[in-house]
């Protein structure tokens, strides 16, 4: 037999025993007002701060209590947190980004030339890399390497490699201006595209059956690989070597960057005059060669471009309106750019002096991670088909793999309900 201690309370007279005096003191002395400089907090940090406040029961508005002391709110708040996904965006637990490379492969004779594109990762999970005169294939699923072709040193070295969308065929651009097309599964050459360029082919990109090639002669040519007479279109605009070439995801727009510091956007529906296709946009904002180009997977008309040693900037463009959305000075030569397919993040690779890979949060452009390891400029980057791993090849003759992008699967907080660190905050040891 036990007694219920029933207290008749007044709604105008507060109950002292039900008050939390620590919290009252805190609120009365100006707590809860953000002391941090609001400019420097990123949206992620804001969200984290709010969640922390909620968990620790610090977002109460009332100090005076008129009823009985409330039951310890710890468990209920945890439950509330789990079910409050409807209102706010669920805050994903910050993923751990390994600061060192997971694997390093030897890459002897990798040509140390900024303007080439010697690395590509195909849809069949095979990496193609050109080391000097030889193209090697590396099967990422079992780690086995093989030689695809060694070309004659008179027509070499290899200046660009690019996988076709089917992941089976590989285009190999050469120093003598030819482009060879290879079937990697049958290990045989299908054809050679000749006569398109007058000098080396340093950049290439596929758009279905069209192989677009960019040459040191400044020309960009669309080659239809299905027909004998393969040159179907020529884009003239660059006056120096075309080192960056990327089709948008829709295949409607082509971005090209050159050693003339220019960035062009070409549209497939553009007008055709004077035996050449007119460009849609011409950007001369960069003050050095533009090689790094990457279209955002989340926004079809958002393009990121990176400048060479004299520019060192990453710029963002709206390819429809032609507006420059943002420009960031990174402090070193930008060699390559890759977007994260799972998060709003951008990865850039750099040269002197740190030779690092920088992961940026988009659009805040806050540095999330800086991956070091290469001892020379990181010239080339490629992304795995599942979007989790990035391969980087540098002038230090190594090929490194980084698990920087994560798997894209979010660990649900529900599974961690019992082990959440703040669940037992009343029992701080």
């Amino acid at each position: 037999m036990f007694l219920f201690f029933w207290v008749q309370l007044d709604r105008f007279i507060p109950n002292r025993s039900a008050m939390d005096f620590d919290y009252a003191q805190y609120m009365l002395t100006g707590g809860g007002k953000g002391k941090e400089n609001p400019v420097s907090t990123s949206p992620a940090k804001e969200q984290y701060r709010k969640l922390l406040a909620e968990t620790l029961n610090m977002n109460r508005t009332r100090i005076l209590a008129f009823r009985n002391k409330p039951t310890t709110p710890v468990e209920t708040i945890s439950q509330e947190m789990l079910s409050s996904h409807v209102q706010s965006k669920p805050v994903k637990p910050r993923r751990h980004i390994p600061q060192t490379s997971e694997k390093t492969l030897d890459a002897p004779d990798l040509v140390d030339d900024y303007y080439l594109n010697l690395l590509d990762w195909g849809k069949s999970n095979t990496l193609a890399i050109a080391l000097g005169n030889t193209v090697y294939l590396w099967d990422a699923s079992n780690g086995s390497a093989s030689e695809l072709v060694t070309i004659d040193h008179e027509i070499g070295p290899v200046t660009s490699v690019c996988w076709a969308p089917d992941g089976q065929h590989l285009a190999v651009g050469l120093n003598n201006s030819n482009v060879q097309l290879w079937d990697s599964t049958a290990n045989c050459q299908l054809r050679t595209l000749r006569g398109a360029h007058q000098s080396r082919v340093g950049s290439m990109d596929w758009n279905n059956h069209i192989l677009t090639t960019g040459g040191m002669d400044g020309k960009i040519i669309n080659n239809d690989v299905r027909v004998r007479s393969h040159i179907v279109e020529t884009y003239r605009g660059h006056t120096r070597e075309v080192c960056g070439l990327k089709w948008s995801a829709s295949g409607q727009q082509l971005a090209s960057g050159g050693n003339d510091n220019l960035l062009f956007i070409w549209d497939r529906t553009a007008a055709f005059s004077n035996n050449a296709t007119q460009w849609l946009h011409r950007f001369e904002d960069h003050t050095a060669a533009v090689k790094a180009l990457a279209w955002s997977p989340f926004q079809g008309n958002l393009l990121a471009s990176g400048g060479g040693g004299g520019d060192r900037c990453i710029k963002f463009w709206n390819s429809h309106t032609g507006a420059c959305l943002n420009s960031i000075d990174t402090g070193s030569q930008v060699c390559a750019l890759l977007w994260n397919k799972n998060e709003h993040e951008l990865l850039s690779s750099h040269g002197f002096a740190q030779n690092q890979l920088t992961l940026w949060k988009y659009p805040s452009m806050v540095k999330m991670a800086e991956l070091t390891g290469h001892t020379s400029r990181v010239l080339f980057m490629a992304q795995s088909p599942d979007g989790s791993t990035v391969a980087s090849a540098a002038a230090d003759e190594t090929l490194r793999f980084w698990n920087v992008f994560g798997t894209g699967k979010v660990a649900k907080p529900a599974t961690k309900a019992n082990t959440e660190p703040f669940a037992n905050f009343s029992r701080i040891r």
Partner: protein
Amino acid sequence: EEIKTMPEARDRLVRSMESTTPLSPRRHPFGEFTFHVDELDRSLATPIRWGSTATTTTRVPVTFSASRGSAGPVIRGGLRGGRNMFISQFQAMGRENTPTMARRGRGRGVRRSVLPSWYPRTPLRDITSIVRAFERRRAHLQEIEGPEIATPAPHNRQFIDVSAPGSSAHLKHDKSMMTPKVVKSTKACSPLVGSVPKILLGVANQNAGDSELLTPQKKLLNSIDTVEKEVMDELRKLKRTPRAKKAEREKRVRTLKSMR
């Protein structure tokens, strides 16, 4: 009257052409569209070998798994004087390539790779553990520049228990990664490549019984030095074997014959 005929001109030697693989049909179908295949290209792609028979193996010291089989019609440059030949010819020019880079090449001064000069280079071989070891060595050497930190004895022993099995396991793992990729048919550098993992393992086993007074970093440095010494010795030994001498003589004979 005897008519003296001139001996046949020697610069009209017939060179053997390697037989081409059977030509596939003009159209190479895949997926949604078909490639146009050049017949002309295939005949031009026939490799022309200089003074060597079809059975001669290539001089490229490449060792990796043969899962893909041999490449198709492959053009190999004749009498390649080492893989660095093209680098000296190919000048990396342009503002983004600094002048020092254009003149750079192995054997001309600054070496680009983190691997030491005596380490056998194989395209796409996994060198993760080796690079890490050298990074640690470099970091340790940089530490030495600063004040020496005397490590207390019990702390030392703790380290050794943890790292000693770890380092040997590391090297063992390294060996298991290397051996499947060694192909027996290649000549020249392959005997050395095959013995490097054995040397590493031998050194690792040696170090397992060392005294506890050495820090793990010093042990690693010692092992690196030992490995370097052993590999150089192995190299010299290989050069002196009768088989190597024979191979060298054959190479010289071939060179002379081609100059006729």
